[in-house]
């Protein structure tokens, strides 16, 4: 993971140590597929932020005079069973899906990264105990764990965030533990220990910065997965409650009308697909840009 060159970098003043390696942005910009991913995400984010300016209508208000209309010039993606414009709902839905994704991944990383650091750095009994716990969580197929947590917690935005965040935390524990294991034997860590640095300081100053690149890459990919999981819960009617526009929930409603009105299920699903694809493209690009040696597990 770490070469002698990066060892010297770590000993520069502290502000430098935490900064991403130079040229990351330049390398990312040259990565064509990553730029495509970034552009797609930018369209969704900007669109959802500007939604109230772009559209005058309310994404949740029913209008029974125009139910289930196919795509037309007035309604580019058609209208749903309650006469709501699908484009408006999808653009507003981006807010919900992205918010859930970001919060769930943040929760997941906030739980998983410190636990992984401790597990890898201290080793021994602590590591054993944490890893058995992780094994236990990984004994449940990912989506099943989120679904079970929803069964316990109940539906709603907050519970979806908690369920998805908890279910994916083991990924971070494993990832960060691996890095911490390899860093703790490095000479500069030994030197810091000899100088009397506390474990907390070593973890913050030396181990954590080395975890940043893999954590950033993983989080980007994880955002796609989190949005996908949340949408899956919504599709089953166990996610965000209607009438809140959420892509998975919209897709679930669309299934009922699949045979008569194809557009109701098609477009929300397309939005999920494009978003997840964009996060995957960006994640792959970031991996190449941050560290060309890093590879898919």
């Amino acid at each position, binding site marked *: 993971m770490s070469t002698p060159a990066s060892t010297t970098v770590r000993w520069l003043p502290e502000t430098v140590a935490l900064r991403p390696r130079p040229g990351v942005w330049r390398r990312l910009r040259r990565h064509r597929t990553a730029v495509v991913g970034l552009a797609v995400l930018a369209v969704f984010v900007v669109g959802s932020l500007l939604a109230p300016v772009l559209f005058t209508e309310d994404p949740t208000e029913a209008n029974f005079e125009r139910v289930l209309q196919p795509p037309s010039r007035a309604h580019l993606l058609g209208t749903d069973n309650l006469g709501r414009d699908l484009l408006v709902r999808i653009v507003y839905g981006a807010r919900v899906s992205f918010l859930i994704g970001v919060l769930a991944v943040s929760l997941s990383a906030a739980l998983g990264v410190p636990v992984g650091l401790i597990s890898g750095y201290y080793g021994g009994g602590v590591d054993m105990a944490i890893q*058995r716990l992780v*094994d*236990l969580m990984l*004994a*449940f*197929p*990912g*989506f*099943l764990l989120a*679904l*079970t*947590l*929803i*069964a*316990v917690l109940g539906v709603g935005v907050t519970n979806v965030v908690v369920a998805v965040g908890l279910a994916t935390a083991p990924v971070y524990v494993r990832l960060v533990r691996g890095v911490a294991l390899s860093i703790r034997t490095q000479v500069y860590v030994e030197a810091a220990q000899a100088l009397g640095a506390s474990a907390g300081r070593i973890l913050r100053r030396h181990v954590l910065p080395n975890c940043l690149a893999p954590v950033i890459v993983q989080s980007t990919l994880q955002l*796609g997965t989190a949005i*996908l999981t949340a*949408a*899956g819960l919504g*599709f*089953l*009617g*166990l996610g965000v409650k209607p009438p809140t526009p959420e892509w*998975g929930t919209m*897709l679930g409603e*669309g*299934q009922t009308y*699949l*045979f008569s009105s*194809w557009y109701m*299920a*098609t477009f929300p*699903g*397309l939005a*999920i*697909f494009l978003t*997840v*694809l964009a996060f*995957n*493209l960006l994640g792959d690009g970031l991996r190449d840009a941050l560290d060309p040696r890093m*590879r*898919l597990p």
Partner: protein
Amino acid sequence: MGLYLLRRLGLAVPTLLGVTVVVFALIRLIPGDPARLILGLQASEDEVARLRVELGLDRPLYVQYARFFARLVRGDLGYSAVTREPVIGEIGSRLPATVQLAVSSIVLATLVGMAAGILSAARQYSALDYLVMTVALFGVSLPVFWLGLMLMLLFSVYLNWLPAGGYGTPAHLVLPTVALAAFSVAIIARMTRSSLLEVFNQDYIRTARAKGLHGRVVILRHALKNALIPVITVIGLQFGALLGGAILTETVFAWPGMGRLLVSAITARDYAVVQGVVLVFAGLFTLVNLAVDVLYAYVDPRIHYG
């Protein structure tokens, strides 16, 4: 090998035990009185209190767990609050459908994924390679439930080739299998390709090529065998993803498996069924992981299990 098997089995036992503790604890975390939930709002306090004693809910948690575990090993998972039938029977009638879907999907994913990965690696950086890897990228980004609906729209509604849902004939199996396998096809193809490319750099591959062996023989006989370990790991992990995806796929295609049972049980707050299905899913996954580890020993004789 025999000793290794025993040892690996020994490792699976604590995991399975842990799974029962986690599921037991999770279900007890649900707010509300299970006895009241079973009897409904009309029942009198007396009736509820009697059922609480009957179910052992008045005892400490560890006693409840011991009773739960003692019943579990006898195959007693309690009764459904909705149908009043034994949970084990409900699961038993749904399990074959889920296993059928999961097995057919993993077989399809393995065959197609490995074939695509081998082709891709054999012609690295060719148009074919790019095509396969692009399709694989799409595959990992597709929501299984959306893919299912789109396949249904195309093949059932417009072309009218295959049934849109249901269970029974081989024709019913096609669309759910394809939808569920897509993600795993992509993952297996990627892993096969990268694992093969890594092996291609080894000395023994250069030797095999240098002595004039046909390219196909080198890839299939020399390289593939050595590239298999990571691929098998991924296939094992994919089985877990498939079980998760099966929950969604079954809902899309009205497939009468455990996934749909779980979803309807969650919606109906039928917690005995939720508990039972989650236990069976996690148990299945643990056993598959066990099988994968045993398969390693078969594929790679270099692995020593001292």
